[in-house]
Each structure stands twice: as C-alpha cells, then as structure tokens.
C-alpha cells in the first residue's frame, strides 16, 4: 500500500512533474478518450446516455464544420475590429449581401465557383468603400463608428428585403461537391455482422477544409510576410509607421478589403450549406461577436478557438438539450468574460 503510494506523491510534491507536463498528460488523455469515442464500437449503456453513436459523432463533425463557417466570418471581423480598432457592426450585412450576390451569380451563370469569387470580390470593394468613406472620417471615435455602422446595417437589411424579398434562397452546389463521404467510423454493427459506416456530406468537409486553409493563410500573412509586419506595426504605432514611409491608409484599406471579402466569401459558402434569408445578417454578426469575445480581439488563433467552442456548443446543445441549447453559447461567453476578460488568446492592453 505505502509502496504503491510512494512514487506518485513524491513526484508531485518534489516538483518532478512540471505544470506543462500535467497539461500535456491531460491533453493526451482527452485525445485518447475522443479517439475511443469516435472509433470504438459503443457499449449499450453509452448509447443509452448519448442517444446513439451516430448522433454524437455527427454532432461533433457538424460542430467542426459550423465552427469553420463561423471562423470565416469572425476572422474578417477580428481583423477589422481587433487590429484596426474599427467597430464594424455592419459585418453581418456584408455576409448576407455576399450570399445574395453569390446566389444571383451562381443561378445566372451556373458556375458555383464564380459565385464564390463574386461574393468575395464585390464585398472586398464595398469594404474598401466603407473604409474610405466611413471609417476614415470617424477614426478613433468608437461611439460614432458603432452608431453609424448599426445604421448602415439597418438600411442595408431593408434594402436587401426590398430587392430579394423575404424568401429563402438556396445556392446550388455543383455536382462534384454533392453526395456523401463514407467515413471509416463504425456507428453500429448489424445482426448479420456487417458494419454500418458513418456517412457525411462531402460539401461540409470541403467547408471545413477551406476554413483551415484560409486560417493558416491568414496567420502566415500576418506573421511571416512584409504586409503582415506593416499591419501589426500600424496597429501598434501608426505615426511611426507613417514616418518610415509606409502609406498607412493603403495598408488599412487592404485589411478592410480582406476582412469584408471574407465575410462575403463566407456568405456564399454558408448560403450553399444552409440557406440565405433575411435575419441571417444579425445571426452571423452575433455569432462573430461572441466568437471574437471568447477567442480574443485581433487574434486569428483566438478566432479559431472561439469558433470551435461556439460551433461545438451549438451543435451539441441542439442534439442533447435543444430547448436550452442557446444558453450554452452565452454561458461560455460569460465564463470567459469573468475568468479572462481579454479572451482566450487576447492580449491585455
């Protein structure tokens, strides 16, 4: 008894295990549990608790893809809001307008990729226009920026209602993105011994992949390139950057274009996975606000973590306690604000 107790107590009290190692161990354990949950064939009691393996694994996968979508919207928001201190509450309108434009282009030309490109480009242009005509005039005046962008979002919502009416639009995905993937995950075993594999819509996997590629790209751009260096420098000390011969306004216009373009891109991609309808603008604005608050302002990694948490919480809530599912999202936000007000990856300023 005492011999068995010996090693563990000595190693903890003696400081043989660092904090980092403990966290590593916890992480490893969590990864092992998740791997087991996904790949093992579930015993009956676990199925009884979590409805079914198919429901659970699907909820996790859906949480991941929804997180991908939220990340696409929120990454633009975090760039503009966090890095440039510009409060753009019309970001949701950019999402919705991008989706409508994507719908029009796709249904007229028949090329989905053209619709995606149009969503990005048109919103990027509108973003630059907003930066030049609105934000540059109101630089540093947070309250006026907030009010003006709320106004823009209300006007934009009514204009879009006038043009596209209240109907629900579905952007058609091309044939090669249709159908379902069979994943190497066994959800059940039939009585004749045959395994039932999990199928998952291919399109959603593509959404997730696109989000990851864009996330990594953004991180590389901000941290490894010259433009990224200029953006970071401009955020810290605009006057100094300007004095060293860089056109600060041009740099910020680029950031605004990328941020707004990403919202439009997400609109088309999201409108193909789900649907386009009035009210989506507010929904995605709220989602990206929560994601950015949880993840931390101005951090691409933070937006990814925030999107993951919110996406998973929403989908798991929807399956296991649908009536109170919405609460879960805001519990995460409240806990973050209480424990770490600057957000998970945010820097205290």
């Amino acid at each position, binding site marked *: 008894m005492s011999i068995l107790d010996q090693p563990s107590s000595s190693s903890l009290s003696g400081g043989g295990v660092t904090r980092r190692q403990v966290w590593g161990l916890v992480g490893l354990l969590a990864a092992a549990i998740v791997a087991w949950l996904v790949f093992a064939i579930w015993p009956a009691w676990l199925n009884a608790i979590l409805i079914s393996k198919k429901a659970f694994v699907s909820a996790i996968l859906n949480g991941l893809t929804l997180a991908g979508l939220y990340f696409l919207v929120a990454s633009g928001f975090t760039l503009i809001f966090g890095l440039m201190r510009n409060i753009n509450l019309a970001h949701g309108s950019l999402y919705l307008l991008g989706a409508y434009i994507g719908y029009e282009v796709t249904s007229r030309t028949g090329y989905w990729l053209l619709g995606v490109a149009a969503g990005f480009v048109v919103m990027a242009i509108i973003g630059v226009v907003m930066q030049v005509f609105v934000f540059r005039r109101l630089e540093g005046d947070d309250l006026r920026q907030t009010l003006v962008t709320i106004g823009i979002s209300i006007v934009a919502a009514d204009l879009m209602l006038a043009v596209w009416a209240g109907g629900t639009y579905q952007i058609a995905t091309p044939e090669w993105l*249709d159908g379902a993937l069979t994943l190497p995950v066994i959800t059940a075993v039939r009585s004749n011994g045959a395994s039932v594999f999990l199928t998952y819509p291919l399109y959603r996997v593509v959404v997730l992949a696109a989000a990851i590629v864009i996330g990594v790209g953004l991180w590389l751009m901000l941290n490894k390139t010259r433009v990224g260096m200029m953006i970071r420098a401009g955020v810290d000390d605009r006057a100094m950057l300007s004095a060293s011969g860089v056109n600060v306004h041009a740099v910020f216009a680029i950031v605004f274009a990328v941020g707004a373009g990403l919202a439009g891109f997400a609109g088309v991609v999201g409108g193909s996975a789900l649907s386009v309808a009035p009210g989506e603008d507010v929904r995605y604005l709220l989602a990206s606000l929560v994601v950015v608050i949880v993840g931390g302002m101005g951090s691409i990694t933070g937006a990814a973590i925030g999107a993951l948490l919110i996406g998973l919480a929403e989908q798991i809530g929807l399956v296991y306690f649908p*009536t109170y599912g919405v609460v879960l999202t805001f519990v995460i936000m409240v806990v973050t604000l209480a424990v770490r007000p600057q957000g998970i990856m945010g820097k205290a300023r």
Partner: protein
Amino acid sequence: MHRRTLLALALFTGLTAPSMALAADDTIKIGLLATFEGPFTVLGEDGERGAMTAVAETNGTVAGKKIEIVKGSSDASPDSAVRAARKLVEQDGVKVLVGPLSGDEGLAVKDYAKTKPDVTFINGTSAAQDTTLRNPAENFFRFSTDGAQWMAGLGTYAFNEKGYKKVATVAEDYSFPYTQVFGFMAEFCKAGGHVPSKSWVPIGNKDFSSVIAAIPEDVDAIYVALGGADAVNFLTQYQQAGGSAPLIGGSITVDQTVLTSKGKLRDVLKGTPSAGPTADTNDAPAWKAFVDAYKKQPGAFPSPSLFAHGYYVNMKATLLALDQVGGDVSDGGKKLREALSKLSFDTPTGKVSLDKNRNAVADIFLTEVTEGSDGNLLNKLVKVVPQVNQTLGIPEDEFMKLGAVNRDNPSCP
C-alpha cells in the same frame, strides 16, 4: 399669384383631408396584422394577398362604406404581435382587427383582446389549440381551424394506407407545432402506431444536420412540422445527408410557401402525405374561382397557400358580418360580434360555422405532394374529411382530459 393660389389650395386640402377622413362616416378601418418581417415574412405576405382578395371581392367597400386597411407588422414573436396589435388599436384606432399569423402570436393577442372588450378580433391563420379551447376571449373569433384539426385523417392514413408503424417527429418548439403533433399523434397512436422520438428545435434554426443524425434509424417515416425557411433548411439538409425514410408533412411544411422553393429539396418532398385546410388540386368550382381571384394579387404563388386561404376566410367573415350590421361598430362592436358568432357561410373550401368557443368547424383535406403538369409541386387531394370540430369528434369532456398540448403530451413511445 397663380402659384400662391395653388399653394394655398394644396395647404388647405392637405390640412383638411385627414380631418375629413377622421370625421367622415363613410370609411371603416380594419387592422391587418401579419408577419411582414422575420422568418415568416413570405407567409405574412401571402396572408395579405388572401385578405386583399376578400376585400377586392366587394370592390373595397362594405355596407356602402369604403374599407381602409391599416397594416401592422410582427416578426412571429408574441411580444411583437401584441406591440403591433396595440399600435393598430390604440394609435390607429381600429375597431376591427384581422390577425395574427402564427401560433404563439395568437395566444398573446387573445390575452390582449381581453383587455380591449370594445374591439373585435378575428384571427388570421394562427392555429394554436388554446387560443380558443382553454380560457378563450369573448371578442376573439377564429373562422380558420386549429393545427390539430388540420391533421384530421392523417394519422389513420399513415398507419393504415401507408403502413407506417413507427414514426419520429421533428417540429419547431412552440405552440402551433405542439398542436400539429398532437393532432397527428391523437389518431396515429390510437390506430396502434408508435412515436419513439420527438425532436423539438428552436424556431429559426439553420443547421439541422445534427438533429437529422439523432433521428433513430429504425423508424418507418419522419413526421415534419416546420414552416417557411426552417422547412426549406431541414428538407435540403435531409436530402444532402442521404436521408431515405419517407416523410409525413405538417400542414405548413408542404404548403406553397415551401413547395415553391428552388433546389433539390423537391425530390424528397414528392409523395409526402399531409393534411390541412386546403388542397391545391381541389376541383370544386368555388375553390377554382378563389384561385383565379387570388392570382390577380401581385406576386401570387401558383396556388394560394394556407395563409392566403386563412386570411381570406377570416377577412371574408369580417366583411359579411360588417355588411349585416350595416358597418356600424359605434356600439363597441356588440352587434358585430353577435353577427359573427351566428355567421355560417360557404368558403372556397366548404361550409364554415363557429362553435361555442368561437372556433371554426370546417372541412379538412388529406393531400399528397405531386408534380403538376407545369413542373410546380402541388398538394393533390386524396380525401376530404367533412366538418371537423375542435375536439376532433371526441366528446368534449373526454377531449379535455387528454390535457393541454405541450412537448411531452401526447406520448406513445
């Protein structure tokens, strides 16, 4: 000089015209409350088309007075409906109000009606059971039937004709879908069917894929009671997920507001049985005449949705009763309400009369989704269930013992 006269004239008419309208006895104001914003916008717009069809039938006049329609907009939430009703009654001064559209709105407006005994409320299409069944308001009339009545015949049809023994349900989490599921299950469970799983999703939910994955795989069919954008999203994602179980539709799930949506959801909808207050392929001359009149409204669907129908029937009843009392509501609407409660008339979908709770007794149509000759999806008439009352033919005391509808009632796992 000339210009100045014109200006004076314009000022004069501008100043006097509104006061003249207020003073004049030759117009009658009717409030029209529907969802012109939010997730049910499309439905509200079609409701308005229905109401305006009824107004157009009398050339915009009733009992020699001109009808003035004052619109109020809600977003399907109960508080927005009460706010809009309050604005119409207290600010615009309407004495007759037609609306609202959605279930929870109806419950809220009924409670508001109790505080305004001088105003007469006639339902739009809201179809929650307890708007009229339990604790009704004396001045709230419903000439459209409720969500449980709309399901008459569907449960038995699914069990006997389609052979479905186990059915899972997916519905929005508020009073109208509770009522619809109740109406379906009342018959289906009685016939011997089982409902092992019920999913209630928040209204306005976009991503249904996790809900779809949680539906048990061994069910024979899925009963779906979702409306507007929610139905479109569910059906699209069900198709994307390769769903193979056949569907059974709630009344507004296979309505024209959903059937006219573009996309691949059309494939999963074909052959879906449903029931409701209308059927697109109804051959009755009265229905055909109604469809023709409805199509004259701007932006009309190929066939009127049940919202157009419900608003039409309720507006028609309002105008008939107003005509009977000579458009006189100066007595706080007492005569009008008496006329309304005695009213029995032929609608495009058969005879309608009220019960003692001022809820309609009317014909219900069992339908199945088919593709029309022009490629539009239509609800093909399968069977008419004549004169369904609010207790679905069950004696009232027995029916009340079944309890109020909610998430868990009824239950037959």
